[in-house]
């Protein structure tokens, strides 16, 4: 995966203008077809999620019994109006996948926005202040992350009841540790640099040193974590919805579609297959994009492989 095109032409260490660097990035991306395709796929999912009300061919929550369990259009008995077929209530599978993507992305982005902000903040504090603050925060991180996230999420939902916002709360509660670890490790490597020392020497207040000097310099590895976490959260949302503790009907979610379609697995393979492909491809492409972001933002990483 890390097999980049040779780095000899890029001059990774030569000072380059921002414009040149962007052009180089694009050229590398163009050569790396797998990453290019995954990036396009992620953009497609984001676009279709945003434009769901416009591009969705049917209402995702309304169906008619006369159209129930129609196979995809290329299979015998298929109806060209329903490209990926219909479900047990006659609802269009493609439309439900498009609307489901909206839910998955919302959950992914909101969770990572909150847990990322919280975790990064705690990681910054932990790494910058060290001593007992560091020990305390990192012990909490250790304890909480030694625990399987699925069980914690289920416990949350058991107490709060199922639903999208409760699920977001549960997954957020569970997702901050990785950001804290990441931010802390980055701060530790920044803390002793001359730049930070200089900032302190001229009397910058702690908050300014942390957010004005350290944070902007460690943002790139953090971004990679954010992208990979969105992928992980989308998987977790799908699992929880599949089990019946996430998104509730009649709302549409990929995991929920699989859970509902499971009963009809003998007659209607498409109900389980297509939403699953959507989940798998989205998570896979987000991972590939995450890896790409890492190599692009970190020139050292690029030449190492």
């Amino acid at each position, binding site marked *: 995966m890390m097999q980049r095109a040779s780095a000899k032409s890029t001059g990774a260490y030569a000072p380059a203008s921002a414009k040149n660097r962007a052009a180089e990035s694009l050229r590398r991306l163009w050569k790396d077809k797998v990453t290019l395709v995954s990036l396009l796929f992620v953009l497609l999912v984001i676009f279709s999620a945003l434009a769901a009300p416009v591009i969705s061919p049917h209402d995702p929550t309304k169906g008619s019994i006369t159209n129930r369990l129609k196979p995809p259009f290329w299979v015998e008995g298929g109806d060209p109006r329903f490209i990926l077929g219909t479900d047990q209530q006659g609802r269009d599978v493609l439309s439900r996948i498009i609307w489901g993507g909206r839910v998955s992305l919302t959950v992914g982005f909101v969770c990572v926005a909150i847990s990322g902000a919280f975790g990064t903040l705690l990681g910054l504090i932990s790494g910058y202040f060290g001593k007992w603050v560091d020990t305390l925060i990192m012990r909490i991180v250790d304890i909480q992350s030694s625990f399987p996230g699925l069980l914690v999420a289920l416990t*949350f939902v058991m107490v709060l009841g199922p639903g999208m916002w409760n699920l977001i709360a549960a997954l957020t509660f569970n997702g901050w540790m990785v950001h804290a670890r990441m931010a802390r490790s980055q701060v530790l490597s920044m803390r002793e640099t001359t730049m930070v020392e200089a900032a302190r020497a001229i009397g910058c207040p702690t908050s300014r040193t942390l957010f004005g000097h350290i944070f902007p310099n460690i943002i790139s590895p953090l971004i990679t974590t954010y992208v990979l976490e969105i992928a992980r959260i989308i998987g977790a949302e799908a699992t929880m919805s599949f089990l019946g503790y996430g998104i509730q009907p009649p709302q549409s979610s990929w995991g929920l579609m699989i859970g509902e379609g499971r009963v009809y697995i003998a007659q209607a393979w498409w109900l*389980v297959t297509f939403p699953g492909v959507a989940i798998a491809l989205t998570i896979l492409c987000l991972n590939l994009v995450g890896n790409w972001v890492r190599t692009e933002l970190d020139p050292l990483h690029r030449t190492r492989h």
Partner: protein
Amino acid sequence: MLRYVTLRLGYCVLVIIGVSLLVFVITHLVGNPVDIMLPLQATEEERAQLEHQLGLDRPLLVQLKEFMSGLVRLDFGLSWWQKEPALAIVLERMPATFQLVLWSFLVAGVIAIPLGIIAAYHPGSTLDRILTAAALTGICVPTFWVGLMLVTVFAVRLGWFYTSGYGTVRHMVLPVLALSIVPMGRIAQIMRFSMLDQLNKQYITTARAKGLDEKTVIFKHALKNAAPAVITTIGVDLGRMLAGISSPVEHVFAWPGFGSLILDTIQHQDFPLLQACVFVVAIIVTMINLLTDLSYGLFDPRIKY
């Protein structure tokens, strides 16, 4: 060595207590189980009666004290759902999960370790790229969906195996396969990465230069040094898998293990049973972590505890 183990065991106890307390706090402070257990139109009297029956009307500190003293005696009370000692119910379900998880890891290891070594031996080759891509895909695909796809093809279409249930080999093949996909991908990734890391080191060049045959270089030198990283991954993943991550797959195949017990617990909002589940999970996770750390000494004589 003894000192190290004692210290670590003390830390394990701390984690187990910490996690149990965390769940106690979540279940008792975040919401009221009575709200979810009773229908919406329940009267105040019915609510008070149920609260009294479950002991939830007592002061929180009294409940906490009772919970802690129960924790010390390994007594979590009777399950609300099954009216039997909670811990006994959990332990009764463990063997099925052990069976499922151990077989999955055996399958995963037998396939992934050789593939990881081969990929690391030919870095950048087509085979390496295919294996790397396959490993990433394996990690990204949701397990419950893999399970359902296996059911569609091998149980519904071909009729080789049973769709669900427990007992014979024909019941076991599909859940074991479904559960082995993620560890297979993870093990292959780590195996490749740490093997590649070792193969680039100077002692390998030395070993080759002094005329050792390639087999000895790879298996006696490189593999032995690459092993600890792989063992950590297997250990941690094994612990998490035993500790409830197997639930979606157990749910798909109606496997009567710990994973499906967790889902039952959540469905019945059974606090004592949940506490017992969490306790067992915490023990498994911490013990596996400890054993993993101790196993390093077997591979690296420099490590002394």
